[in-house]
């Protein structure tokens, strides 16, 4: 496929959709559905100023801290549980129950303990993100190939780093990807409910103040953040799991 054709295929539909929205909404007088031109204007005025540093940046920092903590806890506890069949059998029903609780309902409980500050929001993110990572790590560790495990034992290769973490990393990444989406949702929820500032809080203020184009621009920004995070994750996955994708592709041929 030539480069021109690839670009047309890649960008054709998105451009057509945005153009469609632009022209369909041009000159819109509907109060709740302003024109895209108006929304873009509001976007530039609202977010490309001090708000980027005051509201968006703290949200993102909380998200990154919470996500990193969940990753650490999930992998460490997951490896510990996954390595012992007894621990796994004992902990499984409790973990299944804790995972089944929709994470947002923990927000009011966590608020009781830590108020509505930064700590609450970070704990909320951790409490939701940790389950998919933990359970996938357990599954990954459990499914380690017996032959690989015995080879490691025979050659006295350090098992934790070269066997356990390596062999379960595709599963861990799957869990981490699920957690990414959940973490973003919880970042917004924690700011919508336990509100003292941040991106979700600001959008809610716009909604309550009937600043409709500003609110639409906030929704747009959240979407862009979601897309950017997914893109970053994809890059990181390509790097850390290059060996895995490579061996899978080789198997298919």
């Amino acid at each position, binding site marked *: 496929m030539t480069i021109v054709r690839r670009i047309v*295929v*890649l*960008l*054709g*539909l*998105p451009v057509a*959709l945005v153009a469609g929205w632009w022209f369909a909404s041009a000159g819109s007088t509907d109060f*709740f559905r302003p024109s895209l031109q108006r929304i873009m204007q509001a976007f530039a005025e609202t977010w490309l100023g001090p708000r980027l540093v005051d509201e968006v940046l703290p949200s993102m920092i909380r998200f990154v801290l919470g996500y990193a903590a969940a990753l650490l806890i999930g992998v460490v506890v997951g490896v510990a549980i996954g390595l012992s069949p*007894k621990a796994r*059998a*004992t*902990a*499984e*029903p*409790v973990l*299944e*129950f*804790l*995972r*089944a*609780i*929709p*994470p*947002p*309902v*923990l*927000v*009011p*409980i966590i*608020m*009781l*303990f830590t108020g509505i500050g930064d700590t609450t929001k970070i704990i909320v993110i951790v409490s939701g993100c940790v389950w998919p990572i933990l359970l996938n790590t357990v599954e990954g560790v459990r499914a380690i190939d017996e032959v690989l495990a015995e080879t490691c034992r025979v050659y006295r290769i350090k098992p934790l780093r070269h066997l356990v973490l390596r062999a379960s990393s595709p599963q861990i990444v799957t869990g981490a990807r699920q957690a990414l*989406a959940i973490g*973003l*949702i919880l970042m*917004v*929820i924690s700011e*919508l*409910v336990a509100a003292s500032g941040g991106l*979700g809080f600001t*959008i*809610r203020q*716009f*909604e309550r103040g009937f600043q*409709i184009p500003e*609110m*639409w621009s*906030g*929704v747009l920004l*959240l*979407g862009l953040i*979601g*897309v950017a*995070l*997914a893109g970053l994750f994809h890059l990181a996955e390509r790097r850390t799991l290059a060996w895995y994708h490579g061996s899978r592709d080789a198997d298919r041929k």
Partner: protein
Amino acid sequence: MTLWRPLLGLAAFGALWELLPRIGAVPARWAPPLSRVVQELLVEVRQPRFWDAIRDTLLTWAIGLGIAVAAGIVVGVTIGAIPLLRTVTASTIEFLRPIPSVALIPLVVLLYGTTIRSALVLVVYASFWQVLIQVLHGVADVDPVARDTADVYRLPKVRYLYWPTALPYVATGVRLATSVALILAVTGEMVIGAPGLGKQIWLAQQSDAVPLMYALVLVTGLIGVAANVLARFAERRALAWHPSVRREVPA
């Protein structure tokens, strides 16, 4: 696997929940012991509002999941079966999928107010992608031999080629969507104020009814477990013919 270990785990969890507040390791005002929560739950189950809330949540969940699954399958098979459509839409789907569903909350509140419809939009949006992506993967996984066979015998392709190939993927998608739909249903109720368990939890929080809040969260978790079990059971039933399930049957 013996049965006593899982039970031991649950018992230990319950015992910790009972003991930690009693000995004052966590403040009992904020984390009431399990017995207190169960007591509260037994009072609450006699209230009609409790069952109303459960009905509303389950209704939002089921309707939303139904719409999302139906739309995901129809759109997925259509896009997947037509290669041109697939290449053209790939970038758009990759772009729309990571948009967090909660970003829509302010929008739906303005457009539909605090009704079940608002929560439904969130549920459908979030679970639709789970199904769609799986269906697309599934349809792409068609075995070349099966494709040639279908070509030669002129079998209807959607019925005999795409559908059986995609079914295990559809089942995975539905299972994922089941839990996502429940999360979004409760979230919608909590944040938007649409009727249901989420709203009751929020009201309990606001009126400082801490044990009631824990009781409702417990119920939500149990519904979540039930939904997972149900989805797995349905998956096994629908795929009883498939090698991945048949292999697990002990010889």
